[in-house]
């Protein structure tokens, strides 16, 4: 029971990260395309400036919840994908300093250099996070001790790459919807116009990933057959996906963004629903069948204590996150920081 609750917590944390840091990764990946003038780029960055750092905390908290609840998963997955993880870390470092340092020197070349760094690192992170989810769905070749050595060929398999590109499109769409909501003028127009093309790419890729997932992970439908209520998650996702261009057409920017957020939650939720109770399945031929919520877990007592801490802590976090987003509500302007 407690193991299942922690599976749920981990899903919530990762989905929270994907939705929140997702829009600033998307803005990062797109801002060079959508924002043409220095002032527009300033506005795009200003739209995520006060919140990106807090959004990234979700990743740290998700990592923390993995250590405390499923230490073996943390140990095996992070050491197994060692180089990929290190590249993610370096990209996170680059992205963080790019957004921190771009304002420090008032010179167009300085800003351009950091904006390109910000754009590339955001886009690559979006791809790598997608590829990571793809590899979790596909599974890894465990040895008898529950470890594996992930090579690049293993990491960058076609299915994972497909998931990576899907992630880039989905987060790009999410970022465009965010910019449409938070800006005005030509930047907003361009962000609005990019929603539908990105949506088309995303839907095609999502269909391809969904189809391919039945091939790479044949047992994926088992949970949906056993608990049909779970099918509500992908159905809600499909509804959200359909609503995005409709909201866009009727000019409802906030609703478009919320639909995009719902879609991301539902895609990750569906993946989690299909995986349960597995956390990281083994590829065919693995020495063990994979890590699940039981063989990767810490003790029931550790998990119970941590769950109490989690519920208490997140209740506080939600109170001030709501207030922080309320302060930063409305359109972003370049002058807000002066």
């Amino acid at each position, binding site marked *: 029971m407690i193991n299942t609750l922690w599976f749920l917590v981990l899903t919530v944390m990762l989905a929270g990260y994907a939705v929140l840091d997702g829009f600033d990764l998307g803005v990062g990946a797109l801002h060079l395309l959508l924002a043409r003038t220095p002032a527009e780029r300033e506005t795009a960055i200003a739209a995520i400036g*006060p919140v990106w750092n807090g959004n990234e905390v979700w990743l740290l908290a998700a990592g923390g919840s993995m250590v*405390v609840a499923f*230490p073996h998963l943390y140990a095996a997955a992070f050491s197994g994908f060692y180089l990929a993880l290190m590249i993610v870390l370096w990209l*996170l470092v680059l992205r963080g300093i790019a957004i921190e340092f771009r304002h420090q020197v008032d010179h167009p070349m300085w800003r351009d250099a950091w904006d390109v760094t910000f754009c590339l690192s955001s886009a690559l992170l979006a791809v790598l996070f997608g590829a990571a989810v793809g590899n979790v769905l596909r599974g890894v070749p465990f040895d008898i001790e529950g*470890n594996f050595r992930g090579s690049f060929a293993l990491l960058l398999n076609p299915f994972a790459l497909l998931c990576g590109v899907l992630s880039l499109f989905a987060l790009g769409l999410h970022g465009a919807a965010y910019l449409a909501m938070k800006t005005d003028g030509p930047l907003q127009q361009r962000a609005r116009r990019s929603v539908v093309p990105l949506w088309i790419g995303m839907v095609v890729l999502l269909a391809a990933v969904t189809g391919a997932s039945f091939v790479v992970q044949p047992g994926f439908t088992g949970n949906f057959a056993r608990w049909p209520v779970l099918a509500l998650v992908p159905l809600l996702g499909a509804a959200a996906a359909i609503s995005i261009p409709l909201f866009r057409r009727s000019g409802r920017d906030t609703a478009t963004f919320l639909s995009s957020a719902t879609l991301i939650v539902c895609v990750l939720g569906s993946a989690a629903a299909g995986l349960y109770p597995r956390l990281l399945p083994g590829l065919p031929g693995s020495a063990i069948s994979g890590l699940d919520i039981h063989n990767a877990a*810490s003790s029931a007592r550790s998990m119970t204590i941590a769950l109490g801490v989690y519920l208490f802590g997140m209740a506080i976090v939600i109170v001030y996150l709501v207030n922080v987003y309320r302060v930063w509500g409305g359109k972003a302007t370049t002058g807000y*920081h002066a």
Partner: protein
Amino acid sequence: MFDAVLADRWQFGFTIMFHYLFPVLTMGLGVMIAVLKTVQLSRADDRYGALARFWAKIFAITFGMGVVTGIPMEFQFGTNWARFSHFAGGVVGQTLFMEGVFAFFAESSFLGLFLLGEKRLRPVVHWLSAVMVALGAVVSGFFIIATDAWMQHPVAYEIVNGRAELTSLWGLLTNPYALWQFPHAISGSLVTASMVVAGVGAYYLLSRTFENAGRLCVKVGVISGLVFSMASLFPTGAVNGENVTRYQPVKMAAMEGLFRTQEGAPIAIIGMPDTERHELMDPIFVPRALSYLAYGDFRAKVVGLDDYPPDMHPPVELVYYAYHIMVGLGTMFIAVMAVAAFLLWRRTLFTSRWLLWILMLALPFPYIANEAGWMVAEVGRQPWIVYGLQRTAAASSTNVSGGMTWFTLLGFMGMYSVLALLYLFVAGRIILAGPEGTEDGERS
């Protein structure tokens, strides 16, 4: 040559020491900014507000560096120390997780409000956001130290199926080791922030730029520098030392270079440990002082390194030198700050250029003292990663080779060198631009 554990240790050591250069400033500086905001509000004196705005710019880039260099720390527990995560995750995961939930969320949310929201918020709310940022930084430090303290002195656990299980959250958070290690680290951080503030102020006075702000910086820095350099020695340093003696006598023996167990053990002010002949070379002793410091009794018996098998010894030289550097620098900080505070009281400090020069050039040394202190704590814990429970050599990832880690270590070194240059460049520009340009200056 490609020993994996050695590579893992180098990578963790390098990345943690680089990382700590930033939080050591922000923990203390956050508190100082909150105090400046409080003075601004209570005395309705905007000079303090301008100073808070100025230091907030330095705080912002330092905090940013701390965030980006901090993420690799948590992740390395999984990438390079998989067997440690597997063994201790159920315990240390609690505090790491609590840091995220209770400290990082608050810190990052309120930092945005504090840095960018002065115009949008009522003064009281802006003041509150400064307090929350400071609180977040200090609380974050507490959870990290609670994690480290458990590795120094494991409490509130039991070993089940070869893994550590937490038995009491309260026990973990009130680890007697943490209760003095935490104020000692915070005090060290406040010394750093004070000396940075005083050092920059001294630069303004010496260069005759921004002299009003410079006087205020020197005054604030010297007063808090005196208080916290003394607090670093007593009570926090002294009681922390007693804890080391109580829980890790072999570390204390290495710190003091005490090879043979003896009654009435002396303290060596100077001397080089010779680990082949098991004695200090050319020491200058204060007789019986160690016995008194450790046990409050000049005749007490203090345990020496030779009472432990060699495979339980930490690297003696490193611990010994690091400890002596920390204590030596700490003593000098007290002396400098005491003289400066005396001249401040006599109203001659701002014209005593020789002392202003000392204050300015002293700026890097609290960093060295803090890093040295952490070396004592962490290198002194070796060969254990969790004291008495898990050896460092048995804690690394078995599926990551040494060559791989050397490669990523070089990557970190390269990237961090660039980060260091960028940080110094940007911080230098902020300092040169001075505090009075805050009204129409660049955003931070």
